């Protein structure tokens, strides 16, 4: 019985406590303590235990029925019996005697309570007695009696303070008996009032609803239980509360699961405000599904929370849990999708972190880092395997997330490098370039950063090469190549690839016209460079120097280059180009020297060109310019040598005519007149101007004359005259020249011939005649007259006198006429001469008569007569002579007083001294200080 009682009690309590975990320390004793038993205190002081029972029983035997005191003793005694039984039950071991005592005690208590109720049915506080009776029945393992007692209590005493407890006990009992309708009613009754049983009842009613498949109602109760627990407040839940919480969640999950799953959760909480436990509701539901290997439902549950409570501190965890769920499912695509969703949702750029502090989510940070990396590598690998740009783009995204989110992480440099590599693969060169540079210069140096630095240069180089020449794009990329290479050089000066990149930069700088920079770069490469690098560097250096007009340096560089780079074949274009540039450099050097006024250097340099680059097409120009410079500096002989050489080597050169002209100058200046004439003869052939040609003909003659090549001169003058009878004035001078040269050559006959030609030309010239032409003609006439005079003077008046006299007279007449013809030209200079000479002719004739040979057969008288006769004959001629002399003297009126006038005056003084011999008085000394 005791065992049964104990078992029953244990069962009762287990149900009670099992369902009322909340009421951890609440026992029947507690309930009792809370019951109002103060009336017992009004009893006379009695002993407790066996002696008290004895005393009370003794009293009952004697007590008057219906008295209030008896009723109190009845109840008191029953309570003592119950207490003692309880104490014994509570002990560790119960002897058989004790078992018997317990059973007797409880039976006694029941009897006593029943007696009290029977004897005193109308007592107001019988609800307490009923409560105690139920208690006693409970100890005695008589559940039906307990239920009956409690039913009597709730029905008869609804206002009892034990009402809620009684209803709760009833509900619990109904629940155990699966009489859920009654249990529902009882729990609801408990909940109708405030009591310590409300929470438990709420919880239990939830279960009841659940059992009755009324999930929505059940959920409301369970959620209310959660609300009542004030989960999430500062207060920590007790173990039992935690258990209640967990248990509630389990039922809630079961409820939602039994409904429409997570959508029901969402729906439910649209109608009802959720507390801080909401995450656990979703999670719990997910867990429920997970237990059932319903991965998708689990994930949906978790993610439903994540989506509904975006800013919740728990969202990242659940999103992360989702990944694990899928991992359990062994569905890798789902895992990746989950990872992506998680990573998207909680990327450091996401809205989530605007309201949440990432630093408080270290775990999430770690997870993000892990997932970014994993996703990047996954897509990277996929992109490469499938050659999918789409996948690569995804990888780029995750690399980017990683880099931006964890810039200081030790793996970021590597991630960044891979990111750059992918960008480059996708031909997103701008971004790739920036990424490579970022890797190269923003992280601690490593092999990878070196590689990145080099890759940045390579990317920029490739893009620049792909761009159309001279476009903005090309220029921009070239600038990047340059800048990036310089950075590369500064950061990784020992890299073996550096020299080649520097060379490339030099090439770009050269292409962009930044020759100074190109030169610097090339010079930087030269020391300790390979042969190939050296050749390239020298080429750029040479070109740069050339463009900067540093021709001397360019020449040296090119020559050094050609030592390393002999011609590969006949048509080695580059070789030829370099040779050509050497030639131009030398030529320019010479020009610079020329401009600087250093003629000697200019000449040497021009002439050097032929020695260094004999095949150059500008050798001829250089030779020509050298000659020019030699001419300028009056180095005639050297200039002649160069020009003659030029003529020989370049017979068909377009400058040949200039060479002729310049040779003419050089020959002229060095007084090689014959050669000048020879060059002039050549010049005639290409001189377009008729006037110039005419002058050349004339000058040729002059030159021969100057060179004392008189016959050649005469020939040239005559050629001129034959070609150019006009202009008349020059033709006259030409004739005069011919006359003079013939005179020099003692070619009197030829001279006279040309004198006559001159006179004739002058005579027929008409309006072209001039003072000069008259002068020349008059001079020629004088000359011809002189010859007539000479012929006249040769005749002496000797036997045969008559014949000789006649001859002399004839010649006199001829001579006088000849001189008289001079006077027609009215040229003062020749007129005075002619006049004077006519006077002389007459005077000489007069004298000749007087000195003539006398006939030998004359006697003295006859001789005297003869002499008188002669004198008479001679005198008129003397008079004539005086007349002509006087005529000359009269010219002094016109201030004409030349030697012929003076001679006439002198002759007058001799012929007519009385009239003309006048000697002026001169002071031999002047007596003055």
């Amino acid at each position, binding site marked *: 019985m005791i065992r049964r009682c104990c078992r029953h009690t244990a069962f009762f309590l287990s149900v009670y406590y099992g369902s009322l975990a909340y009421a951890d320390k609440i026992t029947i004793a507690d309930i009792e303590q809370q019951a109002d038993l103060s009336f017992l205190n009004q009893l006379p002081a009695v002993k407790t235990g066996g002696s008290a029972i004895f005393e009370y029983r003794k009293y009952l035997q004697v007590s008057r029925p219906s008295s209030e005191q008896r009723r109190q003793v009845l109840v008191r005694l029953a309570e003592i019996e119950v207490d003692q039984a309880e104490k014994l039950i509570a002990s560790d071991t119960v002897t058989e005697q004790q078992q018997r005592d317990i059973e007797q005690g409880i039976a006694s208590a029941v009897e006593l309570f029943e007696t009290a109720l029977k004897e005193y049915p109308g007592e107001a506080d019988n609800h307490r007695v009923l409560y105690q009776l139920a208690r006693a029945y409970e100890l005695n393992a008589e559940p039906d009696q307990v239920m009956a007692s409690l039913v009597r209590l709730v029905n008869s005493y609804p206002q009892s303070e034990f009402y809620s407890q009684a209803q709760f006990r009833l509900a619990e009992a109904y629940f155990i008996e699966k009489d859920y309708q009654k249990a529902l009613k009882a729990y609801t009754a408990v909940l109708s009032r405030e009591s310590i049983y409300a929470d438990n009842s709420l919880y239990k009613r939830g279960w009841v609803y659940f059992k009755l498949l009324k999930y929505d109602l059940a959920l409301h109760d369970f959620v209310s239980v959660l609300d009542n627990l004030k989960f999430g407040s500062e207060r920590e839940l007790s173990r039992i509360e935690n258990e209640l919480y967990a248990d509630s969640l389990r039922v809630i999950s079961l409820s939602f699961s039994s409904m429409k799953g997570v959508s029901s959760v969402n729906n439910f909480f649209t109608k009802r405000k959720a507390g801080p436990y909401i995450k656990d509701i979703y999670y719990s539901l997910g867990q429920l599904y997970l237990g059932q290997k319903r991965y998708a439902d689990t994930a949906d549950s978790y993610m439903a929370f994540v989506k509904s409570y975006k800013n919740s501190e728990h969202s990242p965890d659940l999103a992360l849990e989702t990944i694990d769920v899928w991992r359990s499912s062994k569905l890798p695509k789902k895992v990746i999708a989950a990872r992506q969703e998680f990573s998207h949702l909680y990327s450091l750029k996401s809205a989530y972190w605007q309201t949440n502090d990432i630093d408080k989510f270290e775990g999430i940070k770690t997870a993000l880092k892990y997932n970014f990396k994993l996703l990047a590598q996954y897509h990277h690998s996929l992109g490469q395997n499938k050659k999918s740009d789409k996948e690569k783009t995804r990888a780029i995204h995750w690399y980017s997330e990683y880099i931006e989110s964890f810039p200081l992480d030790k793996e970021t440099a590597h991630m960044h490098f891979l990111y750059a590599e992918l960008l480059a693969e996708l031909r997103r060169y701008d971004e790739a370039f920036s990424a490579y540079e970022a890797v190269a210069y923003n992280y601690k140096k490593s092999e990878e950063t070196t590689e990145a630095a080099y890759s940045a240069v390579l990317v920029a180089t490739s893009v620049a090469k792909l761009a159309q020449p001279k476009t903005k794009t090309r220029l921009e990329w070239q600038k990047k190549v340059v800048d990036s290479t310089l950075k590369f050089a500064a950061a990784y000066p020992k890299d073996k690839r550096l020299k080649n990149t520097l060379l490339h930069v030099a090439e770009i700088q050269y292409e962009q016209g930044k020759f100074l920079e190109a030169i610097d770069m090339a010079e930087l490469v030269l020391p300790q460079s390979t042969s190939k690098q050296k050749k390239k560097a020298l080429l750029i250096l040479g070109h740069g120097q050339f463009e900067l007009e540093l021709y001397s340096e360019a020449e040296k560089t090119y020559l050094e280059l050609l030592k390393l780079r002999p011609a590969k074949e006949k048509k080695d274009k580059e070789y030829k180009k370099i040779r050509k540039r050497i030639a131009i450099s030398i030529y320019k050097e010479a020009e610079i020297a020329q401009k600087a006024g250093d003629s000697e250097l200019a000449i040497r340099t021009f002439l050097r060109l032929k020695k260094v680059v004999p095949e150059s097409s500008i050798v001829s120009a250089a030779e020509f310019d050298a000659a020019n410079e030699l001419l300028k500096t009056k180095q005639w002989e050297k200039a002649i040598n160069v020009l003659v050489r030029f003529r020989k080597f370049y017979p068909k050169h377009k400058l040949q005519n200039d060479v002729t002209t310049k040779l003419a100058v050089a020959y002229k200046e060095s007084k090689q007149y014959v050669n000048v004439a020879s060059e002039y003869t050549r010049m005639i052939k290409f001189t377009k101007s008729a006037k110039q040609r005419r002058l050349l003909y004339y000058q040729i003659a002059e030159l021969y004359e100057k060179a004392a090549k008189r016959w050649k001169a005469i020939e040239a003058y005559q050629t001129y005259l034959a070609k150019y009878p006009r202009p008349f004035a020059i033709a006259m001078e030409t004739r005069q020249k011919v006359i003079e040269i013939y005179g020099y050559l003692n070619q009197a006959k030829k001279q006279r011939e040309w004198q006559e030609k001159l006179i004739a030309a002058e005579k027929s010239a008409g309006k072209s005649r001039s003072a000069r032409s008259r002068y020349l003609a008059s001079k020629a006439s004088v000359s011809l007259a002189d010859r007539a005079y000479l012929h006249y003077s040769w005749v002496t008046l000797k036997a045969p006198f008559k014949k000789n006299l006649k001859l002399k007279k004839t010649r006199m007449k001829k001579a006088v006429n000849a001189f008289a013809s001079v006077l027609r030209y009215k040229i003062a200079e020749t007129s005075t001469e002619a006049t004077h000479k006519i006077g002389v002719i007459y005077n000489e004739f007069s004298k000749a008569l007087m000195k003539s040979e006398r006939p030998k057969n004359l006697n003295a008288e006859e001789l005297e007569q003869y002499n008188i006769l002669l004198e008479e004959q001679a005198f008129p001629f003397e008079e004539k002579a005086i007349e002509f002399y006087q005529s000359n003297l009269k010219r002094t009126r016109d201030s004409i007083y030349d030697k012929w006038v003076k001679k006439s005056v002198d002759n007058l003084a001799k012929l007519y001294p009385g009239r003309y011999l006048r000697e002026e008085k001169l002071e031999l000394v002047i007596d*003055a200080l």
Partner: protein
Amino acid sequence: MRYSLSLILCFSLLTACVQDVVKIDDESADQQSSMSDSDKRVYKRALEGIKKKRLKQAQVILNKLLKKYPNASGVLANKAVIYASKNRLSKAEEFFEKSLKINDKLVQARNNLAVIYRKKGKFSEAERMLEAAIVSNPYYASAYYNLGILQELYLHKPDKALENYRLYLDLKKAGDKRVSQWVSLLQRQLKSRK
């Protein structure tokens, strides 16, 4: 010119006491007084040298004096005389002109310069020079003489030549037969023209 010269001559004849005396003007007097006595003696020796045709020696002396007395017009004039003797007419002309620039009253220099002008055919300049000489010194007979020749032979002014020959003869108390003949010849010539 004729009347003015006659008047000058008449006036001069009345007032002049000495003939053939070369008047030394004030400036010359100044130069003379400024020249040291020893230099004056040296100068005199140079003049003697010129007279005796020791021209080279005379020229050396004159050059030395000119260095010391660059404005000695007489020295300059005598240097011109030497040049004229050597028939270096242009140099003679140059030194006479220099001399006259300093002292325009050097009538002998004017006379000699006029002859050089005539030899070079500068007849008008010669005439002006002689007339100036006469104005400067109306008693300087050579000027009339030379002017007469110039006008007769080269300027073809016989009447003026006649006048000047007469004035010359007026100044030549001892007379000049040759010039008297020229006067007669000219008179006849002029008469025959008329």
